[in-house]
């Protein structure tokens, strides 16, 4: 048994940051922002240390920490990372740090805002490092709940409605997940919430078939699974910039991660039984999301539905239960997280300055705010699957995996790329090209400081787009191990 180490430190980082933010009086907003940025930097550093200590060649969980917590019911403080969770830790740290920088101009209730944001991030880190089912679910809820306040207080369009819808959907997901998790706990009869030990038990075939859909749908709601996705675009639109970034960039990944970490390894027979159904749902996600995005005029709605479409690719990759598919899905979780964070950061700037996100009322922005527009265009190209950006490889791997398992679905999904291209081009050409509208008052271009977070995101996308092995070499061994469990 190892004592607490780096992973505990990682979870503590935002928690300590939260305490510091709460201790600073609200009349010093600058100090609060600096404290948040330092928290972000600290999480980045600790993630870097974890990355440095992580051995990609070893397949299993690493940097393990195991301390008994409530022995009577078998709850332990049990943490570890593998090639699936490490990229997501990196993702969270990057999106958190850049998210803090993006919100540098916030004026309203600064203290509460950053407090809730760090609380949310604490939960996210907790989910990604936890190997104990109890703590997994605990952190899962911790990450979901601050969302309501963040959207309802600091949001914009129909914020109360969006916040309430999001919260209700996510709680509905929890209502499916928690009973199923408890059912697994009792069925195992080991008096432990340890995911590793729960994974060694062979559950009855019928049990797996019955329980798996609960877990898949429950987690799937958070991942934006059709037809339970409608909370997500509405929530994105309502949320303030950095919350959209965290929400689409990280929070939606929690759902997919739950499927990958809890549902599939614990109930592999259930996963096999339902794989065609889940793959079809995922395909609907991809195609449907793309088609809806084609008709939207609010840039945030376009991004929201493109997220639905792209998360469909993650779900499809998972449903193939093949190595390529899952590699691609994990990679897509990472690259979509970065990409969509960039999207929202870019639109956030435009909304801040122009007070509208309606692309038909914008137009010609590239002429007046070239750099700010370039960030959006880069994100849109990445979303359209242009090579040179990370998403291309992720999607390619998913298609490859799908072609092996479900050839027909692979054809449909690849053909849908035309629609993806169409809505991306539409957003670029209508919103950023063309003649500028007369009535728009054009602000100055984005400042160097505000470009920094966006430039970081672009750099990450480009680096991985040029050399995908940087990430795939980490993911691949973990996936290989997972595939071994699934067979």
């Amino acid at each position, binding site marked *: 048994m190892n004592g607490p180490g780096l992973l505990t430190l990682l979870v503590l980082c935002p928690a300590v940051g939260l305490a510091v933010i709460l201790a600073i009086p609200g009349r010093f907003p600058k100090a609060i922002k600096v404290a948040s940025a330092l928290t972000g930097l600290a999480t980045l550093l600790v993630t870097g240390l974890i990355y440095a200590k992580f051995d990609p060649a070893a397949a299993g969980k690493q940097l393990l920490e195991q301390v008994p917590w409530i022995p009577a019911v078998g709850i332990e403080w049990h943490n570890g990372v593998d090639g699936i969770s490490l990229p997501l830790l990196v993702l969270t740290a990057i999106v958190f740090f850049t998210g803090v920088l993006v919100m540098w101009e916030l004026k309203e209730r600064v203290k509460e805002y950053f407090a809730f944001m760090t609380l949310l991030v604490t939960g996210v880190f907790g989910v990604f490092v936890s190997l104990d089912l109890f703590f997994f679910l605990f952190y899962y809820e911790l990450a979901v709940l601050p969302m309501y306040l963040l959207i309802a207080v600091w949001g914009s369009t129909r914020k109360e409605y969006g916040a309430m819808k999001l919260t209700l*959907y996510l709680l509905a997901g929890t209502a499916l997940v928690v009973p199923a998790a408890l059912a697994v706990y009792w069925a195992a009869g080991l008096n432990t919430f340890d995911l590793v030990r729960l994974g060694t038990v062979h559950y009855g075939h019928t049990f797996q078939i019955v329980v798996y859909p609960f877990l898949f749908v429950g987690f799937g709601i958070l991942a934006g699974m059709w*037809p339970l996705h409608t909370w997500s675009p509405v929530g994105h639109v309502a949320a303030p910039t950095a919350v959209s970034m965290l929400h689409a960039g990280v929070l939606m990944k929690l759902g997919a991660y739950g499927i990958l970490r809890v549902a599939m390894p614990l109930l592999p027979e259930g996963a096999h039984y339902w794989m065609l159904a889940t793959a079809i749902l995922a395909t609907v996600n991809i195609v449907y999301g793309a088609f809806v995005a084609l008709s939207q005029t609010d840039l945030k709605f376009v991004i929201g539905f493109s997220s639905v479409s792209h998360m469909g690719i993650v779900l499809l990759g998972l449903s193939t239960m093949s190595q390529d598919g899952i590699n691609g899905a994990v990679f897509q979780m990472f690259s979509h997280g970065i990409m969509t964070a960039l999207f929202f950061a870019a639109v956030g700037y435009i909304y801040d300055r122009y007070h509208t996100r309606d692309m038909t009322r914008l137009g010609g922005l590239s002429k007046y705010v070239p750099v700010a527009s370039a960030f959006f265009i880069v994100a849109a190209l990445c979303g359209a699957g242009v*090579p040179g950006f990370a998403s291309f490889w992720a999607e390619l791997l998913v298609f490859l995996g799908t072609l092996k398992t479900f050839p027909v679905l692979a054809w449909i999904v690849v053909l849908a790329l035309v629609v993806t291209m169409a809505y991306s081009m539409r957003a670029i050409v209508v919103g950023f090209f063309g003649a500028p509208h007369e009535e728009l008052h054009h602000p100055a271009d984005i400042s160097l400081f505000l470009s920094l977070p966006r430039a970081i995101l672009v750099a990450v996308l480009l680096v991985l787009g040029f050399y995908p092995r940087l990430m795939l070499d980490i993911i691949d061994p973990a996936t290989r191990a997972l595939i071994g469990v699934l067979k």
Partner: protein
Amino acid sequence: MTGTVLAALAAQAAPLLACALILIFLRGRPRVAAGTAIAALTVSFAAAAFLVWQVAVPNTASVSQTLWLPVQGGAGLAFGVILDPLAVTMALVVAAITLAVMVYSTGYMRGDPGFARYFGFLALFGWAMLGLVLASNLLQLLVFWELVGLASFLLIGFWFEREAPAAAARKAFLMTRVGDVGFLLGVLLLIRALGVATIPDVLAAATSSAPGFTVPLVAFLLLMGVVGKSAQGPLFTWLPDAMEGPTPVSALLHSATMVAAGVFLVARLHPLFAAAPGVMQGLLWLALVTALASATMAMVANDIKRVLAYSSISQLSYMLMALAAGSVAAGFFHLTTHAGFKALLFLSSGIFIHHAHSNDMREIAGHEPLSQKAGVIGLVAGSLALAGVIPFAGYFSKEMVLGAMGERVGGVVLALAYLGAGLTAYYTFRMVFLTLRGQTPRRQEARDIAPAAHVAGHEEHFSAAAHAAMAWPVLALAALTLVLGYLGGFFATRLSPALPHEGPFHVGGGALVALALVAAGIALAWYEFGRAGALRLGFAERVPALKSFFGDNWYLDRLYKATVIRWTLALSRAAKWNDHTVLDGASDGVAQGTVWGGRILSMVQNGFVQAYVAVAISVVAALGIWLTRTGGLP
């Protein structure tokens, strides 16, 4: 790592580096930006020349690569460079034309606010195109294939603040994406069946039969990409619209190199395609129809760049026909000469456009076109080459194409191909006479004039240096049209050494027929447009229905608007309606139901203490009765 591999890497790395430098650091310093880009392409050009000199052995491909993407059930996908005569020759063509266009652009684009950005994009294109040419892996090729598409999008939409280029850029990217989807599926099928996509391995597998690997299907899917990229068949309409980009861009991307990528791909994978004869037959017919159709469109267009665009489509079809007929050397030879003379034509048309501030040939004619010496030389030399007049380059390559077709297909196809050559001469010289022998500009027909692309108000300051920057590349290319024709033997020995080769000066019966048709075409053009007192109205233009049909891309765009685009948008709106009405309605309904249920239940909570007491006592009484009935507690 050997010297050749190093050279190949340097040829790619230099433009990439230049692109990054320009777009990140040099956006405010146009002269430095242009200098950087030109220096980078000079490096690429030198490296490519070195490669052509070093890699001379036909039918050998040396591949050096490194693992890029791990894939299940195989060693993973390795990326690298392939060095064989085809790749290095194409690399030289690309580097040379890019360099010429860059030098020309320093004059043409002078004073444009986006000057530095323009050179950044050109360098991006140079990198992507060289990467495409030298790619050793089909997936890698696909990557660069998409990247040249990206460069094309950015360059067509370079003047993004005007509606037309923005729309044209979107159309180009979308239409090529339709083809690329097929390409992607083809590559995926290949990887799935073989576990590798390295080009020599793929070609080896094409002749053997790996399980689950159907050559015709893969060939068909890959050809979809070719059709999109090389603007053939149903997917050609993006290319005429792409002329909204700056003229040097049209010269480089949309005639000489990028659109030839499709042809290059067919040449690259020729054994694979040859193993699917049915598909090749289909390609032959498609290319034939495209060649004739685009020639008819060129006959009625008045925008000089559109005429050249249609002729590019037509010539690309000829290259594909040669490849479909089985001769890589002929197709590739025509690609090379075409790259030279079509770039020349575009660049010299750019001189006129710059001078007259209009793309319309009748407008140009009214602005003393003969005063532009370099332009006149370029236009005439290029036209002679395009029409296929001996001894200009186009004659030899077209002759080789028709000769290759004569050996293998014959019959109707060959006859129609010869007819196409005659039409080419006709519309080419219609363009020459309309441009150079005009009397007065006819302004009343100005409605179908595309606005001069670059009217930025900087023409007064247009210096002699700028004129020189534009003239020299044109003159160099004009000289090349006289030289390139004699390289037929070079291509034949390196690319198709197994086929019989007759040498450049062989003038057989076919050549005489071709020359006669060309002469007839030119004569007709002279009669209708050139001679003094000519009506300056072509035979096709006199029939309104034909003029409208030919001038409107054979109504293909209208067809797409009325069908595919309309249906897609309708589907999209239906999906949106479903989302906002059905799905959201359902969830809002559940929420409303919960609220109403709560309202109903809350009526019980009326606040009257006595009501609560009454309920409590009734419950206790009921419990008491139940307990006495059942005999007490269990």
